[in-house]
C-alpha cells in the first residue's frame, strides 16, 4: 500500500467517512456528505484580509510608552501567538490532508490552513512596526523556555498522528521499524490518534488562542496598541470559524454520524480527553504567571486571566458535550465580547483612530486640570 495523490479507485464520496476512507481523487463539490464544510470554506473566503490593510503606525508610539512589564506582557503574548499560528499554518495540511476522504473537507482543510498563514504574516507586520529590530523578537521565541514548553504541548499529538499515518500510508497495518523503533500501526489506533489530535487542535484554537486574545484586547481597552487589536480581532473572527470546524467534526464523530468506529473511540477516550483539558488549563495558568511575572497591567492580571481561562474552558467543553471542569461562572472579562461578537467586527479606520467609537474603553489618562483633590487630606 502506498499513498497516491490521485487514486484511480472510483468511490462514492457520499458513503465515505471524513477520514481514513478512500483518498480523494476528483475535487468535486456537486454532491456533498457534509455541506457544513463548504459553508465554512465560503465564509472563510469571504473573510479574506491582508495585514497591510491595517495601520499599525500609532502602535510604535504606544509601545515605547508602555512600562517594561507591560512590554514583556505584550511581546511574550505576541510570541506565543506566533508559535500557535506557526503550528496551525502547516499542521492541518500535513496531518489531515493525507487521510481525508471527502472533497469538501479536503477543501476546507486547505482553506483553514491558508488563513493561518495570513495570521503569521500579520505578526511580522506588527513587529516590524513596533520595534527597530524585528529579528530579535523572532529569535527570542526559540530561546524562551516557557514558549518551547508550549510548542511541545501543542504539537505532540500532531507529530504522533503524522508519524503513524506516514507509516500506514507507506507500509499499511502491522509492526514496522521506524528510526530503530518498532511502531505498531493499526487503523483503529490511528483513528484514536486522529480523534485525540482534533481535540488538541480544538484546545489550541478555542482555548489557548482566546487567552492570548484577552491580553491583546486588554491593551486596546486602554486605547493603546489598537492597530494590533484590530488585527487580532480579524484573527479571532477566523478562529471562531476554525473552532467551529473541529467542534463540528468531533460532535458528528461522537454521535456516530460518520465512522462507527469513532463513536466507540469517543466513549473510550472520554477520560483521556478530559485530562487533556485539565493539562492545557494548567499549562495556560503557568503561562499567565510567566506573563505577569514582572507585574500586572491596568485591567488585567494573572488571577483574572486564569478566571477567564476557566470560564472559556467550560464554554468549550459544554459545546463538545463534555462535563465542564470548573464551577459555572459568568465571564470575568465581559468587555472581551465587544471584540469577539460578529456585529462588532468592522474594519472602518475610525474604529481605532477615534477613540469615542470604542465601547467600554477605560480612559486612564489624567491631566493636571482633571485633578481637583488639591486640598484633600487623609
Amino acid at each position: 500500500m502506498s499513498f497516491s495523490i490521485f487514486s484511480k479507485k472510483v468511490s462514492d464520496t457520499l458513503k465515505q467517512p471524513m477520514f481514513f476512507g478512500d483518498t480523494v481523487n476528483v475535487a468535486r463539490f456537486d454532491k456533498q456528505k457534509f455541506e457544513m464544510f463548504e459553508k465554512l470554506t465560503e465564509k472563510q473566503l469571504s473573510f479574506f484580509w491582508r495585514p497591510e490593510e491595517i495601520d499599525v503606525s500609532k502602535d510604535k508610539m504606544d509601545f515605547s510608552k508602555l512600562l517594561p512589564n507591560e512590554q514583556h506582557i505584550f511581546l511574550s503574548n505576541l510570541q506565543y501567538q506566533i508559535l500557535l499560528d506557526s503550528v496551525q499554518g502547516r499542521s492541518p495540511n500535513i496531518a489531515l490532508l493525507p487521510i481525508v476522504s471527502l472533497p469538501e473537507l479536503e477543501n476546507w482543510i486547505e482553506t483553514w490552513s491558508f488563513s493561518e498563514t495570513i495570521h503569521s504574516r500579520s505578526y511580522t507586520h506588527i513587529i516590524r512596526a513596533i520595534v527597530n529590530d524585528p529579528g530579535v523578537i523572532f529569535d527570542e521565541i526559540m530561546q524562551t523556555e516557557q514558549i518551547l514548553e508550549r510548542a511541545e504541548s501543542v504539537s505532540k499529538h500532531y507529530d504522533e498522528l503524522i508519524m503513524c499515518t506516514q507509516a500506514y500510508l507507506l507500509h499499511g497495518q502491522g509492526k514496522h521499524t521506524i528510526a530503530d523503533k518498532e511502531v505498531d500501526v493499526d487503523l483503529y489506533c490511528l483513528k484514536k490518534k486522529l480523534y485525540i489530535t482534533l481535540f488538541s487542535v480544538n484546545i489550541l484554537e478555542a482555548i489557548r488562542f482566546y487567552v492570548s486574545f484577552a491580553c491583546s484586547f486588554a491593551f486596546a481597552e486602554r486605547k493603546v496598541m489598537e492597530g494590533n487589536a484590530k488585527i487580532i480581532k480579524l484573527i479571532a473572527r477566523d478562529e471562531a470559524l476554525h473552532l467551529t470546524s473541529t467542534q463540528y467534526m468531533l460532535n458528528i464523530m461522537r454521535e456516530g454520524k460518520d465512522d462507527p468506529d469513532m463513536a466507540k473511540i469517543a466513549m473510550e477516550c472520554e477520560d483521556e480527553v478530559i485530562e487533556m483539558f485539565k493539562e492545557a488549563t494548567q499549562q495556560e495558568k503557568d503561562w499567565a504567571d510567566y506573563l505577569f511575572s514582572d507585574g500586572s497591567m491596568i485591567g488585567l492580571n494573572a488571577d483574572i486571566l486564569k478566571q477567564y481561562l476557566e470560564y472559556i474552558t467550560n464554554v468549550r467543553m459544554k459545546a463538545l458535550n463534555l462535563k465542564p471542569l470548573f464551577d459555572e461562572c459568568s465571564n470575568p472579562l465581559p468587555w472581551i465580547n465587544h471584540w469577539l461578537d460578529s456585529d462588532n467586527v468592522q474594519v472602518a479606520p475610525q474604529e481605532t483612530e477615534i477613540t469615542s467609537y470604542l465601547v467600554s474603553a477605560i480612559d486612564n489618562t489624567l491631566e493636571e486640570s482633571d485633578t481637583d483633590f488639591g486640598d484633600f487630606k487623609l
Partner: protein
Amino acid sequence: MFRIDVDNISGKTESLYVYGEKSILTELEDHNVLINHSCRQGHCGSCILKLLSGEVLHQDTLIPLSKGEILACSSAPITDIKISLRD
C-alpha cells in the same frame, strides 16, 4: 424598549427589559442567564434557542434552523419576545 420573557433557562423564568441593540446572547449574559454557546458568530449552533413568541432580527448563519429556532448570538429582538431552551 423590548421585553424578553425567559422561560425556564438555566432554572430562571424572568423578564428582561432591553433596547434591542445587543444580541440575545449578550443580553442574557448581562442578566446572568447563562446558556451554552461557543463561536459567538453564528457558525457553530451551540446557542440555539426556541422563540416561543415575538419577532427577532436574525443575521445570516451557517446553521440550518428549524421553524421557531433562533441563534442567541445572531439575533436581537424587534418586538417583545418569549424564549426557552430547545427541547
